[in-house]
């Protein structure tokens, strides 16, 4: 039987069986950080590493294994942030990942040399369950007693020295949000690595195959006399708040109000900022156009670079606002409540409230949402959630919706000015995805993923005051990602589209148009316009476009829309920049890049009929609401389902549905428009 390796305050005793330090020269020791969901594990990771990792108050947040060196230690120690888990029985992919990491079976991640287990001091008994499963790995263990301040505030007094003796591990009280907690934890981590003695409790720990009851019996023994309640029993603030927030009536009204506020803020609060950016790019386009010599170079700068990439960057404020709201709800602890309230409705489609959390965050972006499904233990439910997540209207669709509504839909006020027609159209676009996703989930649960109804057990974490820093970190990451995408993928696609649409720009085209102009005696303006159009029709893009035109013609699109849609395969918002480039190039070449909305309104079929009628505009929006034009989402579906089948099925099925729905919208819209006339 081994001695307890260290209490929180006693320095490590000289073990007779002291091993040589694990770290081999050149290889930094690795410390695994694990803990229950909502134990504050990710906050602690950030505290120790200075790394800004996205933290949220709901399960399944740290879905990828984060790894960063511990700050403030003389030597290099790598900290491994593993997903939150209640146990290691490997029911959910998250738990399997933790087990694999501890056994050294993860690719690119060597077996850890020590474990830091984060336990929530306000709920020690449940949190220690995970610890009882860690002894079998025979590693040094440090227990970070997190949220010790909240425990004290709730009238719990914890004897951490006694607890350390019982557990055989160093127990370090900590408050993850306070930087003073870092020092003692670092010291304990260094000690654990230096002494490298596997932690063993004085009373032999539960056997590997012990039942949960046996483990809890052991925990009760270890906790005997450790926790004293000095204050009143908890009827916590969270409990009082939940009486209203999860109330069958008030709770639903609050949920609706929250959705409404998010929606409204994206479209009203963002407007001045967007106008500001738009104005900035307009000015830049003029200035740059004046500087660059006429011809290909000026065309590239004003039409391709500023008209295209700038057209996408305008949407940065909306994306920041959307992510701020999602981060706020997560940090507050509201997501789990929303899941509780939505469970009954989700059941109709064979899912649980748990699936609601990734689906809601999918409104910001499907990629983290799909990774977040790892917290779902039922495989069938998880796969269905992954497959319907891309139908939720993500932030990349916003630019498409906003551009087209602003260009084509009149701002007729409704409900006494509370919402205008544009707002209603946008709302409809958000609902389209849901309306399609619901029956698909239902169908999948009865065919490919048929199975018994999944169980629903979800911890409702205590409400926490949102931390501005955490929210800011999310906004920063999302904003940076968006700008980087604009500067890389969108720029590259745009460069390609611009080049294809500009070249060959041959003198023969000009000669041909000049001949016609002389014959039909056109004025200068008519000539410029016809020339621009002819250049584009003769361009490589124009030739490709006419090949694919039969595919999009039934929807009422011209080849330019068709090419812009195809070019937006890497990411949906690319369509805005490609439309900008294509329509600006097709417009009068001697003019400065016109605002894209105007360019769309001015676009004409050869006969002079406008291309962008309201039915065509609506059909483009519906197409983007349902299509799978996002390479990142398809890649992440492939990674999370471990197969090539599902991304291919997703892409083919979603594109087919998007086409069908766009065709129906356009056709129906045509009939309605004709009837109104």
């Amino acid at each position, binding site marked *: 039987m081994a001695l307890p390796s260290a209490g929180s305050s006693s320095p490590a005793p000289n073990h007779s069986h002291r091993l040589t330090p694990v770290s081999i020269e050149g290889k930094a020791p690795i410390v695994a950080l694990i803990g229950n969901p909502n134990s504050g594990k990710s906050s602690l990771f950030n505290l120790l590493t200075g790394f800004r990792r996205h933290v949220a108050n709901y399960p399944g947040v740290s879905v990828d294994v984060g790894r960063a060196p511990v700050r403030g230690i003389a030597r290099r120690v790598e900290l491994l942030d593993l997903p939150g888990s209640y146990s290691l029985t490997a029911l959910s992919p998250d738990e399997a990942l933790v087990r694999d990491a501890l056994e050294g079976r993860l690719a690119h991640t060597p077996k850890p040399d020590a474990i830091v287990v984060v336990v929530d001091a306000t709920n020690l008994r*449940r949190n220690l369950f995970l610890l009882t499963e860690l002894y079998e790995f025979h590693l040094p263990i440090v227990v970070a007693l997190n949220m010790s301040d909240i425990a004290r505030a709730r009238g719990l007094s914890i004897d951490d020295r006694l607890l350390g003796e019982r557990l055989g591990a160093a127990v370090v009280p900590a408050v993850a949000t306070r930087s003073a907690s870092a020092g003692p934890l670092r010291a304990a981590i260094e000690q654990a690595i230096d002494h490298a003695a596997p932690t063993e409790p004085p009373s032999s720990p539960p056997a590997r195959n012990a039942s949960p009851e046996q483990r*809890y019996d052991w925990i009760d023994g270890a906790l005997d006399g450790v926790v004293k309640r000095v204050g009143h029993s*908890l009827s916590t603030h969270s*409990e009082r708040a*939940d009486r209203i927030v999860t109330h*069958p009536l008030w709770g639903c009204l609050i949920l609706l109000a929250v959705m409404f506020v998010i929606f409204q803020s994206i479209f009203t609060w963002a407007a001045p900022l967007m106008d500001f950016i738009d104005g900035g790019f307009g000015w830049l386009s003029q200035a740059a156009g004046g500087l660059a010599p006429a011809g290909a170079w000026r065309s590239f700068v004003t039409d391709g670079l500023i008209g295209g990439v700038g057209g996408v960057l305008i949407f940065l404020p909306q994306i920041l606002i959307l992510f701020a709201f999602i981060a706020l709800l997560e940090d507050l602890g509201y997501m789990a409540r929303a899941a509780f309230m939505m*469970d009954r409705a989700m059941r109709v489609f064979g899912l649980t409230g748990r699936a609601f959390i990734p689906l809601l965050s999918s409104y910001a972006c499907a990629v983290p949402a799909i990774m977040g499904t790892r917290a779902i233990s039922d495989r069938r439910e998880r796969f269905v959630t992954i497959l319907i997540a891309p139908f939720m209207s993500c932030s990349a669709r916003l630019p498409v919706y906003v551009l087209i509504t602003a260009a084509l839909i009149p701002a007729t006020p409704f409900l006494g000015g509370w919402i205008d027609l544009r707002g209603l159209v946008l709302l409809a676009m958000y609902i389209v995805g849901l309306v399609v996703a619901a029956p698909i989930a239902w169908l999948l649960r009865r065919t490919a993923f048929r199975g018994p109804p999944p169980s629903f057990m979800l911890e*409702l974490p205590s409400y926490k005051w949102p931390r501005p820093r955490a929210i800011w970190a999310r906004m920063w990451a999302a904003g940076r990602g968006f700008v980087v995408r604009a500067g890389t993928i969108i720029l590259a696609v745009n460069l390609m589209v611009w080049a294809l649409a500009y070249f060959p720009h041959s003198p023969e085209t000009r000669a041909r148009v000049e001949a016609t102009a002389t014959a039909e005696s056109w004025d200068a303006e008519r000539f410029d316009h016809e020339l621009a159009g002819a250049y584009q029709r003769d361009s490589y893009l124009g030739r490709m476009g006419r090949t694919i035109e039969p595919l999009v013609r039934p929807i009422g699109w011209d080849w330019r829309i068709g090419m812009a849609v195809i070019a937006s395969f890497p990411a949906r918002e690319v369509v805005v920049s490609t439309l900008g480039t294509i329509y600006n190039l097709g417009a009068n070449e001697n003019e400065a890049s016109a605002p894209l909305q105007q360019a769309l309104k001015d676009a004409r079929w050869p006969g002079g009929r406008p291309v962008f009628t309201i039915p065509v505009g609506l059909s483009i929006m519906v197409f983007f609401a349902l299509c799978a034009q996002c390479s990142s989402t398809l890649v992440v579906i492939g990674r999370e389902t471990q197969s090539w089948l599902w991304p291919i099925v997703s892409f083919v099925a979603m594109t087919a549905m998007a086409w069908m729905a766009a065709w129906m919208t356009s056709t129906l819209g045509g009939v309605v428009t004709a009837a109104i006339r």
Partner: protein
Amino acid sequence: MRLTDAINAITYKIRGVTGASEVARRLAELGVVRGAEVRVLGRSLFGDPIRVRLGESHLALRVAEAGLVELEPHA
């Protein structure tokens, strides 16, 4: 009696979880074990799922899962 028969806002002691299914095991891991204290705090629309306080934590459970939880009769 079972957790589904519990009266709101009254604290009961858990006798155990019926069955040996994965769900039963998961419940046990979350702390639904013999001797733990549980109290129903509220119900969702249409009465399912329910919210409970279990020891020091709050859980949302479906009635199907709550039906597996055996309680000591209230003294």
